[in-house]
């Protein structure tokens, strides 16, 4: 007994030490006492024990990503959590064993002394279980929340140091145009700041036309059209690998209600044209395997806060976009889907006489949830560099596991693989189009007379 208490206090002490960190925020993982205070909509599937078997891979990926992550800290936290959990399990087993013994003799009057002893032991062990609860919860939260910050595995094709160009259409232009100046001269753009801009006349027609053309191409490629809401809850944002408490990465809406503000249960403005919006639809839902693969798209808004001192269509926080979301059963089906999307991107962007290229993004430029990203880039003369106007991101089952998006195959719960991205970002596309050598006019295929049959 003394031995048990010794380890218990040692672990408790260690836990406390490790737990002396600022208040932890997670909308995704809520346990213990917090779980009774807050409604827990979804509990992520934790694959860390499996993942930790390949520690070298994790460390290698972190290095390639140049990701600032203290893996030793996670190992420590996980160790403490495991120890406490084992301890709790031991107590539970002990309690069960004692209860069984007690059950055997409880009706036997002559064993009164033994019965009382067992009862006392059970009371003590129950007390131990009760006492270990809080530190266990605390250790679990510390370990899991830290583990949830661990990035996705890198895909084999993701280049290590430099982006890799996989396709080029036409040759780059040489001029020193600036889309803001052209836009103002032609009365096409009024930009007050990155949160507040207007596209006028032909620029607004360009916006709609560009979306409608893409919508048409996607429908012809058997994508199903969606129309999505713009708000998501914190749990979805964190589930998609974005820090929901950071106003530089996601817009947080004002808390309108009289209830107390809980930073893990806010509404966020991401726009319907976002992965978050599709995950809000799919989180905690089960599919039948026969419906896979799925290919969805929508035309919507995308809102991303921008911290930039200079105002341009390349840095605005609101964009009209065409967003897609595709789901396959397994990682092996993803390649075909990826090829399909590259073809669609080529199909769309080569309809115009503009130079563009498709490249595979380097590991250190990926978001933590991405394992591979393809970017469509156009050259911006004003920036003297390529700007990304579209992307296709592979996240595999990383987000499915976090948000319990599942399918059941032969009575086994599995996690589908996700490919998603912004196929068209209108303000960025328009910025590059305005900086082309030729003077701006709405391309014929985008004109209103071609919006219908």
């Amino acid at each position, binding site marked *: 007994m003394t031995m048990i208490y010794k380890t218990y206090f040692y672990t408790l002490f260690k836990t406390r030490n490790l737990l002396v960190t600022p208040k932890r925020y997670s909308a995704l993982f809520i346990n213990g006492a917090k779980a009774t205070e807050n*409604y*827990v*909509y*979804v509990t992520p599937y934790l694959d860390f024990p499996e993942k930790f078997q390949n520690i070298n891979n994790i460390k290698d990926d972190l290095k390639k990503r140049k990701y600032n992550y203290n893996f030793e800290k996670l190992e420590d936290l996980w160790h403490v959590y495991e120890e406490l959990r084992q301890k709790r399990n031991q107590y539970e087993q002990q309690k069960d064993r004692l209860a069984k013994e007690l059950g055997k003799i409880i009706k036997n009057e002559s064993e009164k002394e033994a019965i009382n002893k067992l009862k006392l032991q059970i009371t003590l062990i129950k007390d131990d279980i009760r006492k270990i609860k809080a530190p266990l919860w605390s250790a679990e939260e510390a370990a899991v929340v830290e583990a949830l910050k661990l990035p996705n595995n890198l895909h084999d094709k993701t280049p290590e140091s430099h982006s890799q160009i996989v396709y080029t259409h036409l040759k780059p232009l040489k001029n020193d145009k600036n889309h803001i100046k052209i836009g103002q001269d032609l009365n096409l753009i*009024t930009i007050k700041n990155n*949160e*507040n*801009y*207007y*596209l*006028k*006349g032909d*620029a*607004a*027609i360009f*916006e*709609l036309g560009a979306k409608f053309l893409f919508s*048409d191409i996607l*429908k012809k490629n058997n994508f*199903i*059209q*969606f*129309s999505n*809401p*713009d*708000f*998501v*809850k914190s*749990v*979805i944002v964190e589930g998609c690998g974005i820090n929901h408490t950071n*106003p530089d990465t996601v*817009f*947080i*809406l*004002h*808390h*309108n209600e009289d209830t107390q503000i809980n930073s893990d249960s806010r*509404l966020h403005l991401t726009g319907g044209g976002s992965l978050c*919006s599709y*995950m*809000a*639809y799919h*989180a*905690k*839902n*089960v*599919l*039948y395997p026969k*419906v896979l693969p799925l290919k*969805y798209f929508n*035309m919507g*808004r995308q*809102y991303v806060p921008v911290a930039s001192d200079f105002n341009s269509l390349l840095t605005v926080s*609101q964009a009209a976009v065409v967003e897609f979301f595709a789901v396959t059963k397994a990682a092996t089906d993803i390649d075909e889907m990826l090829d399909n999307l590259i073809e669609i991107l080529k199909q769309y962007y080569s309809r115009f006489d503009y130079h563009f290229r498709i490249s595979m993004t380097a590991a250190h430029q990926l978001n933590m949830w991405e394992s591979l990203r393809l970017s469509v880039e156009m050259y911006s003369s004003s920036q003297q560099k390529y700007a990304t106007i579209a992307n296709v991101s592979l996240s595999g089952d990383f987000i499915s596991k976090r948000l*319990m998006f*599942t399918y059941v195959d032969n009575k086994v719960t599995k996690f589908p693989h996700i490919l998603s991205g912004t196929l068209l970002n209108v303000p960025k596309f328009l910025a590059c189009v305005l900086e082309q050598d030729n003077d701006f006019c709405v391309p014929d295929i985008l004109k*209103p007379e071609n*919006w*219908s*049959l």
Partner: protein
Amino acid sequence: MLYISSLIQNYRIVYSTKGFKRFFSQIYPNYNLQYYCNPKNHEEIKQNIKIRKGVGDVDRVMQLYKIITKTSEDNHEYERIKQDLYEALSILPNKTHPFVKGKFEPHIAHEINKKKDFGEYKPFEFSEITRLLNLMRIEKLGHTCGHKSYYFFGELAELEEALIKYTVKKLLDDGFQLISVPDILASNVLESCGMSVKSDRTQIYSLDPHHHGTDLCLSGTAEMSLAGLLANSVHNINDLPLKLAAVSRCYRAETSNLAEERGIYRVHQFNKVEMFVVTTSEQSEEMLEVIRNTQEQIFTPLGISVRVLDMPPYELGAAAYRKYDMEAWMPGRQAYGEISSCSNCTDYQSRRLNITYKTLNDEYCYVHTLNGTACAIPRMLIALIETHQHPKGKIIIPETIQKFMNGKKFIMKNTKVPELKLLKIKR
């Protein structure tokens, strides 16, 4: 069009009589003081407030005006009194069109298309149809994207796109200039349009003030964004009327537990095509009829039954001088529902936003602004789908829309988007 956004322009108009003395003091809108502060108009204004929503206190306005005219500008109380006066002025409603002044009930001005006869068949409601045909999800979304969220998919989402194409094309043909607008706006723009941001917290979404600055709201309608674009602008009389149109997201925080507003009838977010017109003071009355006509021309080919109502004073928002509402018959609900409206706001918004035009005599006058809904998606879909439902379990697409939907004639049951099953969490 000439955009002048500098403060100097603002001051030239607002403070032409006061000189540069208060250059650093607060900017006040140029309310029509000659009218609102003239005791001769006291009764008329009081009566106008009474027949409208009863908001505003003209006695207080007159009283404050009396005090301020007797207070020296050097008096330390002057600025405070002025602020009070302008606050009292800001909530006074616009004048009311003489034709509707004595009215208490909406007057049916026009009716378009007869109600469809379904015979023995009892038409379904929108939400039942979309459930049966698997075209929309509205259930169990509160925990992931908030109360009253909805997703359209398959041919319903295609129909939304088709309606936007159809409406925008019509407006472009009618000489409207298309504008793509921001959805995040400064609160003063909303206030200038007649929304009270402080007292209408329940109607307006805003960004978290601690994280994103104190002043950013989500646009409730493109009318606000377009008004914001035109703020502090001077127009050449020859450029008027200026007809603008926008396709935008609209955000409304208002909630409703009314049974008749179930489903997507009243939602927090939706797409809308909006018209916004700037005219001279002489043109606005006629322009309201032009806008109404445009709306009727949009709705008629869609085959929905619509009645146009000339709204009585108590139904007018603070900004409106006259307003038409368009109500469509929704056969599934067996009720009329408002799908559109148009208002003449005369100089109510332009005085607050400082939008002027230069007359031929080189005088500056406040423009008149008008706005109208060309197509608000959710209710338009309710009216369309309920009207064109076919007993055999499909929806007939109006002919005029078919060419915007790749020639499709019907909306059938969607089998491509799987129905979802919520996972049960084991604890």
